């Protein structure tokens, strides 16, 4: 069954979109990620113009993250103060990202930039995760219990000025890296259409040493607001948010997430992380492949505004 997307101005198969949403929802439920980093490339592979894929991806991320953030709010594993500081950086980053987005679209290099960012970030994060989880798997196999994170260990980040106390996270840290992480992820959110959880979570754990139980809730809170802001910026400046496309993806995603969460409970943490790492690497490779292999069509058409 075809469905006409009023903003993308094209007709697509609604079942393909539902399946896409459900598959990504399944994975996001299983691994506890927003899934934006999967939905945007999938939409691009499905010939949705990248500009629309990115803006709509950001819109779709809100739904899954909001649902997760509510759960964490109820459990009290959400650090509002830390989340707000991250947000201030995030909104600045997102605004800058939307500006760069419009600029790149005008000179015809947007697709390239999106692909490059995906390859670099997914490749790095996927690679690191794979190494870490394979090591953990080998250790547990050898009978050695996985080493716990040494708390109280400080790095250069903790020597920066403008310190602030975050009670829920039991943290006393400079606001500079917090704002920086927020801004970086806001920037990526605007250009890649991702929530940024896959970067935010490791950054909070490894750089700021935020307790793991608070990380996910706080990251989800920040993602909801930054994605909302990104959606707003894109809909005002570029008019590239396709609400029908987003809605179909969200419906598939919400349903898929439930089954994914159940499947996730059956797997061990290291196994989950290794699988997620492989998935992330696969997406990075697929996008990288497109960059380096001679495309079928050397020529492409765009309207002057950048959209066909």
């Amino acid at each position: 069954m075809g469905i006409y997307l009023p903003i993308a101005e094209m007709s697509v198969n609604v079942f393909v979109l539902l399946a896409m949403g459900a598959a990504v929802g399944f994975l996001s439920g299983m691994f506890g990620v927003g899934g934006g980093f999967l939905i945007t490339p999938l939409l691009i592979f499905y010939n949705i113009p990248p500009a629309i894929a990115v803006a709509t991806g950001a819109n779709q991320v809100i739904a899954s993250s909001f649902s997760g953030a509510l759960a964490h709010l109820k459990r009290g594993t959400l650090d509002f103060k830390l989340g707000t500081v991250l947000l201030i950086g995030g909104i600045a980053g997102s605004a800058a990202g939307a500006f760069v987005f419009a600029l790149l679209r005008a000179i015809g290099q947007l697709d390239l930039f999106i692909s490059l960012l995906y390859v670099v970030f997914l490749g790095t994060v996927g690679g690191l995760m794979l190494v870490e989880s394979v090591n953990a798997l080998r250790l547990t196999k050898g009978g050695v219990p996985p080493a716990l994170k040494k708390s109280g260990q400080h790095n250069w980040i903790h020597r920066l000025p403008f310190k602030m106390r975050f009670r829920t996270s039991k943290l006393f840290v400079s606001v500079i890296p917090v704002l920086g992480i927020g801004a970086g992820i806001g920037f990526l959110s605007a250009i890649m259409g991702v929530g940024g959880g896959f970067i935010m979570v490791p950054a909070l754990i490894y750089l700021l040493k935020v307790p793991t139980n608070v990380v996910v809730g706080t990251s989800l809170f920040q993602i909801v607001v930054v994605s909302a802001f990104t959606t707003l910026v894109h809909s005002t400046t570029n008019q590239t948010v396709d609400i029908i496309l987003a809605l179909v993806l969200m419906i598939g995603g919400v349903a898929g997430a439930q089954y994914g969460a159940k499947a996730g409970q059956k797997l061990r943490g290291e196994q989950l992380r290794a699988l997620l790492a492989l998935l992330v690497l696969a997406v990075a490779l697929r996008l990288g492949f497109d960059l380096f292999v001679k495309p079928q069509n050397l020529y492409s058409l765009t309207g002057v505004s950048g959209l066909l």
Partner: protein
Amino acid sequence: MRAAWLAVLILAAAALPARAQEAAHPESIQIGLSTDRVAITADFSGADLTIFGALENADPLINRQGRYDVYVVLEGPARPVVVRRKDRVLGMWINTRSETFVNVPMSYSVATTRQPQDITDPNNYRQLSLGANNIYMEPEDKRDSPLTIQEFTEALRERKQATGLYSDNIGGVQFLSQSLFRATLHLAPNVPVGTHKARAFLFRNGIFIKETSAQLAIVKSGFEQTIFRFATDHGFGYGLFAIGLAMLTGWLGRIVFRKD
């Protein structure tokens, strides 16, 4: 002097019967659209558009011999288009050169009675600028080398044909009776919205006789149009609505599949 006279006389004599015949049979062509607007609805996945038409004062003899040909074109609204070319830079395929064309018909569907080359010769098509290969694509920067402009013009046509926006339906015009014909044109799933112009050209024995045209508005249907309008005219409100919808979906999803 005498010889010249004679030549003129012969010419006039030769021209006379032809003109008399034309005066007796001023063939003309009419087309009618069953609707003057096509609405694109949520389940739109391309469509065939049928245009009916009639020949007036057709010569029955020529008609029986099947020597009347009709060439129907549906031309979409013109918009500026940028054609970009990818080249290998540091191993990666990157958009490098580009050429902007100012007035490119977004779509161009053709239906003909026969193969275009059997209807009339290429010169006539060129003079009428008829057919996807004969429409003039005006480059924005005319100082670019003609070779480059030609390369990008060809690429533009090729891309349009590959995406189905420029299409040919040979045999798509069928005579239903001596004077009545029906033309079937393909509308691509991504047909542009706007005012389209339908034109029909009548040829007799390969000679262009008459042209007629009608207008067709392709619009998004009520719901799709409302969304599009909302998104373009009230981007901020549309964004807020999209956010609200996403939050509602997330919240509903949590209630429907409540686990904690």
